[in-house]
């Protein structure tokens, strides 16, 4: 597995960076937040991103995709992370779209993936139920009825849920809360009777929602994959999403670090720039090393997905735990090194800190990934 980008991949990354600098710098997230924008992202911008091919990077050409891999998609995630771009890549393309790609039948794939790749449809995955990521802790029930399935339950932290045109709901058709067996995925219309979506405002200004299901009836054709075997799809998708999110985090933490080093070179106290102080220099150098390690493992994990490597899950946990720890360290150190200005709303660094914490808890905190890593390694 290569750990350096090819020329084409470098070019893609460069294009992404330039596009984002022009169309969606950090001020754009601030604008959406301050305006309490009802969609929480710019659908016009998303359409433009789709025209560049970003929405279909992973999808086969027959659905209008580019048929490229996660290494490519990862570069786009990273650049979006740098500018804290509010976009539906994770929710639509990787999570819910990934479920259709991995487990959908031909009709579903053609319909959903084609519309997603064109930037015309937004999706969300309604999965998590408690305050923490725990993939098989699903209490939401799906009971077989003559006219389909009846869904009952409550989903939290559904990314981009309130603007989604379709929602993939993970529900239990058999077994007990916590079992891997017995999960089924449903592709659901948000207007379904009995389905209630409430937008939740998060600290990072990005979209999330509650999805409540009260005797919501969906058709049998809405099932993605096999009934009761949803975890086979879900686990693969979650690994991939974990790595994609890690790439976004890598961008966010790298940018927060670069901004901080710039600040160390310009802010003066005691007649000199604060970057001359060894107490700050050493911490900056430590962060640099952590970032280098983070970059390597993210790249290794992205390449592992593309190679369908048997270590993909292990590497996904490795990458996410490291990104969690690195983004925590850098977010916190950055605020401290900025001094008073760092805790003002006016200075962007605070937005990085807030985004840092949300990403840390999305798709598993470090303790969860450490535990999974140990289990996968047989201890």
């Amino acid at each position, binding site marked *: 597995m290569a750990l350096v980008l090819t020329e084409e991949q470098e070019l893609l990354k460069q294009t992404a960076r330039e596009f984002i600098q022009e169309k969606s710098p950090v001020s754009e997230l601030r604008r959406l937040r301050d305006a309490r924008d009802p969609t929480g992202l710019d659908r016009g911008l998303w359409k433009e991103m789709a025209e560049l091919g970003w929405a279909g990077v992973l999808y086969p050409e027959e659905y209008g995709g580019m048929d490229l891999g996660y290494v490519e998609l990862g570069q786009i995630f990273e650049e979006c992370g740098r500018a804290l771009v509010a976009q539906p890549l994770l929710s639509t393309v990787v999570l819910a779209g990934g479920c259709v790609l991995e487990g959908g039948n031909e009709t579903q794939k053609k319909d959903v993936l084609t519309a997603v790749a064109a930037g015309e449809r937004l999706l969300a995955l309604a999965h998590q139920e408690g305050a923490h990521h725990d993939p098989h802790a699903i209490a939401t029930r799906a009971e077989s009825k003559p006219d389909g399935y009846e869904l009952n339950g409550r989903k939290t932290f559904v990314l981009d849920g309130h603007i989604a045109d379709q929602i993939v709901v993970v529900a239990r058709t058999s077994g007990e809360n916590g079992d891997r067996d017995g999960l089924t995925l449903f592709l659901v219309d948000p207007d379904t009777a009995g389905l209630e979506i409430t937008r939740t405002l998060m600290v990072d200004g990005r979209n999330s929602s509650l999805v409540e299901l009260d005797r919501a009836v969906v058709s049998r054709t809405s099932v993605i994959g096999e009934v009761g075997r949803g975890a086979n799809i879900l686990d693969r998708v979650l690994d991939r999403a974990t790595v994609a999110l890690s790439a976004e985090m890598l961008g966010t933490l790298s940018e927060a670090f670069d901004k901080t080093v710039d600040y160390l*070179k310009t802010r003066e106290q005691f007649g000199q720039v604060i970057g001359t102080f060894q107490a700050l*220099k*050493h911490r900056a150098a*430590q962060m*640099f090393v952590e970032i280098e390690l983070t970059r390597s*493992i993210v790249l290794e994990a992205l390449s592992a997905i593309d190679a369908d490597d048997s270590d993909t899950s292990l590497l996904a946990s490795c990458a996410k735990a490291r990104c969690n720890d690195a983004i925590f360290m850098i977010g916190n150190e950055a605020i401290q090194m900025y001094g008073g200005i760092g805790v003002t709303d006016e200075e962007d660094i605070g937005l990085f800190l807030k985004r840092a914490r949300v990403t840390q808890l999305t798709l598993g905190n470090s303790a969860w990934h450490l535990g999974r890593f140990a289990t996968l390694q047989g*201890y």
Partner: protein
Amino acid sequence: MSDLESFRQRAQSWLEESCPASMREPVQHQQDIEWGGRAAQERNDDKMLWLERLGKQGWTCPTWPAEYGGGGLSNEEAKIVQEEMRRIGARPALTSFGISMLGPVLLEYANEDQKKRFLPEIVQGKIWWCQGYSEPGAGSDLASLQCRAEDKGDHYLVNGQKIWTSYADKADWIFCLVRTDPAAPKHDGISFLLFDMASPGVTISPIALISGASPFCQTFFEDVKVPKDQIVGKLGSGWTIAKRLLQHERSMIGGMGFGIGGGPSRTIPDVAKEYCGEVDGRIADPASRQRVAQFQMDQRCFSATTRRAAEEAKAGTPPGPKSSMFKLYGTEMNKRRHELLISLMGTQALGWEGDGFSAEELAETRDWLRSFGNSIEGGTSEVQLNILAKRVLGLPD
């Protein structure tokens, strides 16, 4: 069949024929490591046989030019040799400061005569080199060194003291930093000198470490005569060479630690299960389980970083200031590894000698104590952080 594939086949059959069976056993003890040198030439055991064969082939230094005794291989070919050696479990035939530190700077800075004279001996392990950098008053602030070399017309006369000179008591020759111009600014008056440790006027006194071992020495020079053709580079340009050598040294130290250098031959999780117990296949103590997982993850991230750096490096580019990162992280990690091992092994890893402890346990105690030197030798961790901040991040003094 491509050229590389046929090269692989030739390498395979050569190694199969040439590597003695006993040299395919894992390196377990310090004495398994071969340092070469004059005294070693007297022995005729498997270690020497292996060194002689590999050295003749030039494969102890696979990418060095063949005209200086090296293997003359491309990076791809060298990688193949490394892979094939690993596949049959072949031990490195030679570990030496000549290969990892001196050779690369001779290739870059020495004149043709010096290359012809010194490099083949390094490749074949004929001379054991030691490093004369540190002095009692010049550690992290290496450039303040005082050891003098005076121009006496046809030779230099060296007077002064070095300290922490690893293996000075075993080495044949020394690469030594000396002050040739006391009036010049401190970085400008230094020269890089090579000389024989058997020269009259060299005395050595070993120093015992907390681990009980005594691998390094105080080294005294009193009116040591050094022929003038043994200065590398120009008079007064030694600091540039010295720094480059340190970059090679740091890359080497940073990459060490996970191969030789101790630790039980079992994996860390196995050690944890043995000493802390096991419940349903898991390490019984959840806190230890987390620490083991954290360590293994970091190890994985570090090894990905090492590989990425190797892929990024263009053929033949010398390591830059980023080598400080590998030195820093690699050594801090090795210290963590030993701390983790002894915390898992409990009081069984704190025996000094005698009954009640296995050989492996006693070895771990000593390896743990040795690891404290890792973040000091070759420049301390703090010095590496200074270098990263200044040279990589561009933070001002």
